[in-house]
């Protein structure tokens, strides 16, 4: 018994000792992040919000051009009236070849575009919701919120045209929400109007913003487009006019910028036609206002070998230089023909030197994934073939000159002397708009031989800034609005403002139709506007694909004018039923 009592006594003593050396538990177990920030302390100052706004710019660049890397990035361009799969394949799993294969609710491309635009919206919402409790002054707060609201509106623009009426998410989400319902298309459009109006009222004028930054005019351009969708043509005209009439904007009519005094040159194609202002618009360094360009409204910024510039001259990072895994603006690679690698002359001898070159003949490092439709390349230009500068041989490259000295056909035209494989396999070479590439202006590090103009195989990006919105489009939008009001004279005037700059013959008011405006947009904005969004917006996709796209005309279905709502969203949104778009 004694022992038991002793045991207990000593036991308790030791126990007391043990527990008395214990520390402050809460403090000991406090979790402090060491290598990341938390929302509580990083949405406080103006600088914090400036960072958050910067992220929206980086994200809109991603959403519009790089969603899903190189494969999904041109879903807005290919399989439309202007372009189709470069290899004539409807079913390649790597690319948006055909609607029938791609447009199912489970498709990853369908979900990727949905998710990336909604992430932009959510990040804008975070800024909007957290601005009130921040340390910013009222003035700073108003301007930060307006910029975020524009970005939100811009994201809804893509969503509403791609998918129709989509859920409206307008607040920061801090706990899981799984009961979204679809708003009507009109509700979404009205929300865009609301947000863009606030931005148009608050944002600085275009001469006051840094290059790449949005101004009140950008918001007004979006307002014009959205009012057209709502068939509010007067409001659309007012908004577009505010952009067009702004003293700080103008269509560029004279040569300007980095190549203003030079003419396009190619040692194989031997251009004879002089350079022109349309050509200047797409040369390296000529997009931002600081280059003298008054036509640009909103320019998406790319810069080589600068963090945040999203382009790298060399190395593996040049291909996938960020953790989102996107290729950086790889239009050159996608839309350029691969002739430089695989082209044979009529004798069956290599007609090309087998290396990508920084010239018009090669088109950089293209790999023939997307090519323009025959309609775009031929029919569209018939009326003004020789006078429209947009169809000049240096703006649409229409020949490949055999450049392999070992070929008997060296320095002669492959159009004139086609090889049998070229005839059998059109994808090996096709005409292309030269704005996809930067002949003679690739970053210096990319050249393997400056005399031969050969490039590393890691080329493929379009090494310049991208127009998100350009004044020429504003004119064509206003034309659409006038057309909506059946004011054909003013509509023709606006179209002709764009045409005259390109030395094309003016259109007669009687010939102005929506299709004509879409044709003009194709001529002016090819590979620049998200063509699919425009065709969805105008309801013309199916009709025009059937008419102009020889590859996709038979597979596209009536209901493909809207994308399906992603199944992953329907499934995750478990507490409310989402109605799928018809026929999916």
């Amino acid at each position, binding site marked *: 018994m004694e022992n038991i009592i*002793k045991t207990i006594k000593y036991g308790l003593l030791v*126990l007391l000792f*043990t*527990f008395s050396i*214990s520390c402050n*538990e809460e403090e*000991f*177990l406090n*979790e*402090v*992040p*060491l*290598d990341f*920030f*938390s*929302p509580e302390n*990083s949405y406080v100052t103006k600088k914090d919000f*400036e*960072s*958050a706004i*910067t992220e929206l710019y*980086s994200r809109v660049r991603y959403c519009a051009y790089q969603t899903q890397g190189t494969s999904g990035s041109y879903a807005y361009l290919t399989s439309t009236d202007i372009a189709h799969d470069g*290899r004539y*394949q409807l*079913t*390649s*799993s790597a690319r948006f070849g055909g609607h*029938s*294969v791609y447009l199912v609710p*489970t498709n990853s491309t369908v979900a990727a575009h949905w*998710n990336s635009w*909604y*992430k932009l*919206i959510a*990040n804008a919402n975070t800024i909007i919701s957290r601005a009130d409790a921040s340390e910013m002054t009222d003035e700073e707060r108003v301007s930060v919120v307006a910029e975020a609201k524009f970005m939100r509106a811009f994201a809804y623009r893509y969503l509403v045209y791609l998918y129709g009426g989509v*859920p409206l*998410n307008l607040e920061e*989400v801090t706990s*899981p929400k*799984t009961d979204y319902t679809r708003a009507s298309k009109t509700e979404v459009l009205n929300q865009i109007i609301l947000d863009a109006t606030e931005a148009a009222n608050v944002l600085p004028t275009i001469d006051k913003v840094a290059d*790449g930054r949005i101004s009140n005019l950008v918001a007004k351009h979006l307002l014009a487009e959205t009012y057209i969708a709502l068939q509010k043509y007067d409001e659309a005209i007012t908004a577009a006019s505010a952009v067009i009439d702004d003293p700080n904007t103008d269509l560029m009519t004279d040569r300007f910028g980095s190549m203003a005094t030079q003419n396009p040159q190619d040692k194989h194609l031997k251009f004879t036609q002089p350079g022109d202002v349309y050509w200047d618009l797409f040369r390296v*360094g000529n997009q931002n206002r*600081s280059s003298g360009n008054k036509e640009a409204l909103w320019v998406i*910024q790319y*810069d080589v070998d600068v963090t*945040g510039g999203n382009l790298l001259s060399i*190395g*593996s990072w040049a291909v996938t230089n960020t953790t989102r895994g996107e290729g950086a603006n790889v239009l050159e690679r996608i839309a350029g023909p691969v002739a430089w*690698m695989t082209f044979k002359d009529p004798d069956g001898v290599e007609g090309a030197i087998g290396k990508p070159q920084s010239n018009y003949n090669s088109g950089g490092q293209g790999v023939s994934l997307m090519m323009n439709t025959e309609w775009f390349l031929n029919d569209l230009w018939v009326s003004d073939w020789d006078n429209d500068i947009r169809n000049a041989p240096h703006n649409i490259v229409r020949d490949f000159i055999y450049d392999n000295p070992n070929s008997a056909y060296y320095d002669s035209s492959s159009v004139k002397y086609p090889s049998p494989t070229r005839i059998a396999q059109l994808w090996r070479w096709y005409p292309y708009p030269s704005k996809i590439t930067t002949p003679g202006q690739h970053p210096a590090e990319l050249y393997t031989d400056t005399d031969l103009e050969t490039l*590393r*195989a*890691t080329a493929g990006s379009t090494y310049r*800034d991208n127009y998100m919105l350009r004044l020429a489009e504003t004119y064509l939008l206003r034309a659409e609005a006038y057309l909506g009001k059946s004011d054909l004279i003013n509509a023709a005037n606006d179209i002709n403002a764009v045409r005259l700059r390109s030395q094309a013959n003016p259109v007669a008011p009687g010939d102005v139709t929506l299709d004509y405006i879409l044709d003009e947009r194709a001529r002016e904005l090819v590979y620049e506007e998200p063509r699919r969004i425009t065709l969805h917006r105008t309801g013309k996709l199916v009709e025009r694909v059937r008419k102009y796209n020889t590859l996709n005309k038979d*597979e596209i279905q009536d209901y493909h004018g809207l994308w399906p709502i992603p199944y992953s*969203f329907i499934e*995750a*949104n*478990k*507490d*409310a039923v989402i109605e799928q778009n018809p026929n999916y």
Partner: protein
Amino acid sequence: MKRNHALWVQIHPFLKKLIMEIKVSILIVLISVLNVYGTYTDSRTKNISFFDLQQIRLAGTISDAATGDGMAGVNIQVKGTTFGAISNEEGKYSLVVPDRDATLVFSFIGYVTQEISLNGRTTLEVALVAEVTGLEEVIVIGYGTMRKSDLTGSVVSANIEAFSEIPNVNILQSLQGVAPGVQIGQVNQAGQEPSIQIRGVNTLSGNDDPLIIVDEIIYSGRMGDLNPADIKSIEILKDASSKAIYGSQAANGVILITTKSGKKSENPVFSYSGSASFQSPTVNAGLLDAEQTLEKVKGIYYTNAYLPPNYTQPNPAWTWGQTELVPNLLTGINNGTDFDWWDELTSPGFIQDHMLSLSGGMGKTTYYISGGYTEENGFVINDNYKRYTTRINIKNDIKDWLTIGMNTFGSFTDFSGKSPTYTNIIISSPFVTPYDENGNLVVYPKGESTTHLNPLLDVQSDDKDMRNRISGIFYGIVKIPKIEGLNYRINYNHSLNWSNYANGNEYGASLTGYAIKTHSAQHEVTLDNILNYERQFGSHGIRATLVYGYRKAAYNYTNAEGENIPNMSLGYNSLQQAIIQRISSSAWDESSLYQMARVNYNYRDRYLVTGTWRRDGYSGFAKNNKFAMFPSIAVGWTLSNEPFFKVPIIDLLKIRASYGQNGNQTSRYSSIAQVSAIDDNKYIFGDGASTSMGQAITSLANNDLTWEKTAGLNLGIDFGILKSRIKGNVEYYKTTTTDLLWNMVIPQVTGFSTIKTNIGEVANSGFEFSIQAIPVQTNDFSWDFNMNFSTNKNKIVHLFGDDVNNDGKEDDLVSSNLFIGKSIGTIYSYEIDGIYQIADTRPTGYNPGNYRIIDQNDDSKISADFDRVFLGRSEPEFMASFQNNLKYKNFTLRFFINSIQGGKDGYLGSQATNSLSLNSTGNFANANTWTFYDFWSVTNPDARYSVTYQAPQILAERYESRSFIRLQDISLAYQFNPSLIQKAGVEGAKIYISGKNLLTITKWDGWDPETNQGISSTSPYPVMKSFTLGIDLSF
């Protein structure tokens, strides 16, 4: 304190012993009373006077004759009387004997009883010899040890001895199939860590690795850092009650590893063991050769290569130029090139292993010192591994009341050498070679434009990959004075793992040169205060353990890399040469705090009760839930120790039941919302402008995030028959895990794809059966075997509890592949019914060569909503293993058969056909593929697998059974007779030959069923079979 030998309860001596115990107890109480009052001289009885007259104090130590370890609990009895005593923890005993010439009887269950005459001695050292049937053992249970017969939970001791002749580089490999309910994955790369799973999956997305404890301290990191030869025993805690002492980390099971220690002996014992293994793949597979590839290419472009409409007649106008083959390949075809890249990039594997140890004990000190070297060269070129290990375990009984010791080890591993990537191997082509005419490596064998770098250039890069660990456990044991059986133990551990990785490749970064240097280090500190109390009060055995401790870990990582390096001669050691430079770093720390109490009670070895309680605090828990409590209770009834139990052939029959709760921790920082400010978020405003920083929220906070709780019931029966010639156990368990950690998929409209949350309930139940038998035992020949069988059924019981579709049943979480009433590994997908042929009518979006998906609802289109069905599950139906040991004179033959079976629709794996290089006609034509991919083409319409270069609208995958039976290990050893070798100064010598993975019976295509690598596996590492020659010497 280790007690290695068995305590085996017998029925017959039991009553006798019991009566004696009662008498002794009464006597002790009487003596105590008399001592207190000091008046016994006045009230002597006849007995006491006898006692008084002859009083002689006898003391000594009882040890195990085999190990030299002290033996606790040995019964000492004065023959012909009822006087006696029981030895303490260290085997020491003392008692008062009535007669100088008395005879003492030393008995311990499982040992040969000895009778020794005192002949006037007052000290007596006794060594007990184990009985042959002594299969019972003392086992490690965490924060202490216990007699196996006292166990109330499900604790298994792994028989690692059975694998001593198998070249297992990682100790976990020796657990493969040896304990029911324990599933260890195969390895197929040098130095690879196998996966471990105990009693099924208890979690949806939480950590599912068991907790590893080495010498009482939580061990995090690579098991490969432990030299298998240093390990003495491994115990596995399976049921909730046994595991409860480790609380919030124990839900997935606990593996307790004890390293070797020295034994008291006159002379130090040197041991050397060495082995060499020769490896080759278990699957004879490779890449298609030129002829097969040409056939493949024609199949891809069949619309040109063959004539319509049936595409069976070759098209005479066909040329290879009509394909998307790149120019170099066309040249290769013309030249008749046929190069075997797989052969070039692989060579037979080789493992060598050397181990030298020294152990012994002098005076109060015992020691074990070892050094080991292991080198493994894998099958794929540069898949290399080298390990250097050292260990010093020392223990010193400084004072009667104080023992101090340390277990230290260092492990230095070298993974240097870059293997070619899977991508680079599979996209090679037989039409090109890695060398030019002069024998130099070609940079881009398929042409520069393909950017397909020669895989052999990867291999030549300067690569350094060192991963090191040093660890020291320092302990002190204090016997608390005056209280018998009470001691205090302090364990302190500090360990450091650090890794250095560096690579310099002049062909990296598109040939501009690439170099990287990475450093990471992780410190861990553990301090445990342990109070142990163990005492027998008559028939009542009490054992109590209290633990108070903390653990802290801190990690940091720094990475620097560069591209475009004009002069690579300094490689990764001068990163500043790079034109483009990147740096990044990260860090974390975590801390935990815990208290634990455990009490075991044993009444006459019949009734056993264990109660434990643990309180755990962990920094990674959300701020509202920093602490958790984990209680458990277990009872056992040794029926065979009851007086009424009289079944002659049954030696042991014990029933056990336990119930308890364990946890599974959340991961660090998982409850905190994160804001990232990475390069992706940055932007520039204007040409030539400087970078603007960007930031965005990347995850949602969940302040209520809590740990997963697993509560479980375990029922077990232990039995021994025919003097333990046959023994075994049967277990049934049922566990329920609630508050499952789950990355709940939420609509990305929120801006987030998932949130970490607690949902639902998962149940696991299973049946385990283990039997050990000795069918034959003669002087020259013996055969014993061990069979294990286990099943596990996994079922999702609840998810959110929602019923949105109002069908009266809780809704499934289809987006996350979770279904009420089904297992976590349920496969809900499309059912395949053959492959579309040219002549078939096909729905829109499906091409010849794609799988024909069954339109379940006959609406003429395939959709995710209506056409997916339950195809089966990935979990096995049962696992079984069979270990045999046959001994004939000096020869021992062991073989081990392991099997995992899926039954009707279990243990399914996906045979995906859409992996890299197969996703477009051009890619498929220009790349290669594995010979076991039986793909569709016009000339192979009956193929097993689809092609996906023409993508179907919905990509279906073929699921197939991974069931297998494997002759995993077989060995033959010869033990030399000591008399022959002792002249050469050698105490013991053994030579052996063994084979691993020699035979696998399976229907699975691809690399291996157990590694789940099929026809288009993402890693070209086959499971290896090997032959080993080895020798063990001690001198």
